[in-house]
């Protein structure tokens, strides 16, 4: 495990080009435990590419990516599997295996760890696995869907199962690719509340790609209160200070990071492109 002071994720001058278009251009960012980064950007600005590059799903052209202290860009695909399995990843559509039941989907990362680690000792027992799967499903309030198949539940539920699968191994870093895309505002808020809950309960770092300003606002201004099991305004009800939630915003344009800062800085930006992402209507 990396020590506390070492960032979980560090990108330095990352470049990726497809033909004449930049997917990622000189991207530099750092993420420590418990920190949240909200990534905005128009379609095709490189948001998803960034997430995929972080865990080495897409090889980059140049630059450095350090995930849990390991140099992702220089690792072979075979060596990457172990690094990747330590991070959680929520795909845009959930990315659930449709031939497996929901329980089996959530169980997959746990069993997969046992298989790839090659060692049976220290691996959780069958009861332990089952308990953790049910805990993860309870976390997203979907315990009753254990035996159902992904095709039998709604899109919002699939997204929640995706979150359960991403966090079942209790990863120190979770990457969310458009967790609320295509969902109605109510379901979207449920999803974001779950993400805030995950952050609070495990102090995990999160990288969240989204289109909705409200998603970022919620992550910046609200904290999950474990005692009352609800979201409360961060830093007390009176002030709206995002420093408490350790949330910062990133705006991407044509593969480049064009803005990085707090919510206040984002809202006071004069840049026309950056301003487009500050919307209060649904």
């Amino acid at each position, binding site marked *: 495990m990396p020590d506390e002071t070492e960032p979980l994720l560090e990108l330095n001058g990352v470049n990726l080009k497809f033909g004449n278009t930049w997917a990622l251009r000189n991207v530099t960012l750092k993420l420590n435990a418990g920190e949240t980064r909200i990534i905005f950007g128009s379609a095709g600005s490189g948001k998803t590419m960034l997430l*995929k590059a972080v865990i080495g799903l897409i090889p980059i052209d140049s630059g450095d990516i350090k995930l849990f202290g390991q140099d992702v860009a220089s690792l072979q695909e075979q060596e990457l599997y172990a690094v*990747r399995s330590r991070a959680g990843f929520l795909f845009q559509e959930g990315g659930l295996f*449709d031939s497996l039941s929901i329980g089996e989907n959530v169980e997959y990362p746990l069993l997969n*760890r046992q298989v790839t680690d*090659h060692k049976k000792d220290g691996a959780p027992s069958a009861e332990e696995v089952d308990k953790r799967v049910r805990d993860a499903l309870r976390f997203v309030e979907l315990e009753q869907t254990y035996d159902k198949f992904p095709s039998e539940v709604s899109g919002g539920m699939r997204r929640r199962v995706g979150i359960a699968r991403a966090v079942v191994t209790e990863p120190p870093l979770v990457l969310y690719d458009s967790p609320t895309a295509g969902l109605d505002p109510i379901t979207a808020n449920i999803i974001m509340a779950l993400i805030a809950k995950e952050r609070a309960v495990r102090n995990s770092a999160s990288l969240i790609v989204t289109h909705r300003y409200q998603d970022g606002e919620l992550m910046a201004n609200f904290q999950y209160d474990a005692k009352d099991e609800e979201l409360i305004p961060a830093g007390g009800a009176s002030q709206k200070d995002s420093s408490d939630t350790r949330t910062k915003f990133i705006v991407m344009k044509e593969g480049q990071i064009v803005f990085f800062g707090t919510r206040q800085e984002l809202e006071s930006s004069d840049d026309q492109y950056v301003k487009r992402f500050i919307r209060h209507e649904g």
Partner: protein
Amino acid sequence: MLQFLTAGIESFQEFLLLAGRAFLNIVRRPFYSDDLSLQMDIIGVGSLPIVLPTGALSGAIIALQMSRALSTYGANSEVGPIVALTLIRELGPVLTAINVAGRNASGIASELGSMKVTEQIDAMRALGTDPIKKLVTPRLIATALMLPCLTVVADAVGWFAAYLIAVPLLHLVSSGFFWSSSWQALVPNDIIQGLVKPFIFGIIIALVGCFYGLRTTGGTQGVGRATTQAVVFASIWIFFVTFLIDKIFVGL
């Protein structure tokens, strides 16, 4: 034209890369034995409903067609050997492989293609599983092992169907003579050829299906395209490889 050629060579290179990695994974841990037995069941047992009737009918058809040709030359006694040789050396392996290609190369390509377009392959990689090890290698082993078995079954029912046509129906030869003459016509070379072919065809079917499945792009339409390409290329390769193997074995 040049672009077309380079694209073709690039595809072939990618195909060889996939094949290499799939073969390497046979000896690399972890082993997904559950996936292997599931695939053996799908490809082996699942193909019987198509392999049994086509095997039987091809045997019967050879016997019928040959009976006319042979009686012209007064060579009715040769019906057994002709059926045995054509079935075991050529028609059994090729027809079974074509059937399995139509059924399984398409099945594999559409399954993997759907997984690709719904991000399930990426999800698998993100969760730390090698999709080649988990998806391609079990299908490769299963098809390479099951296709020779299916071919033996097809040969057997085809041979028996030919017997039913030649002996009880057309009375070309006596029952004992049919079996002994056809059995004696076979040399070890024929049997080896009849088993090596389906083994190689099995490898081709699985790899071509997986290759087109894994490179699927463009949503459901892409899945359809991948499925078609897989069947077309698997079939062409089967005939091409038969030709090559025949060239080698005829020379022996």
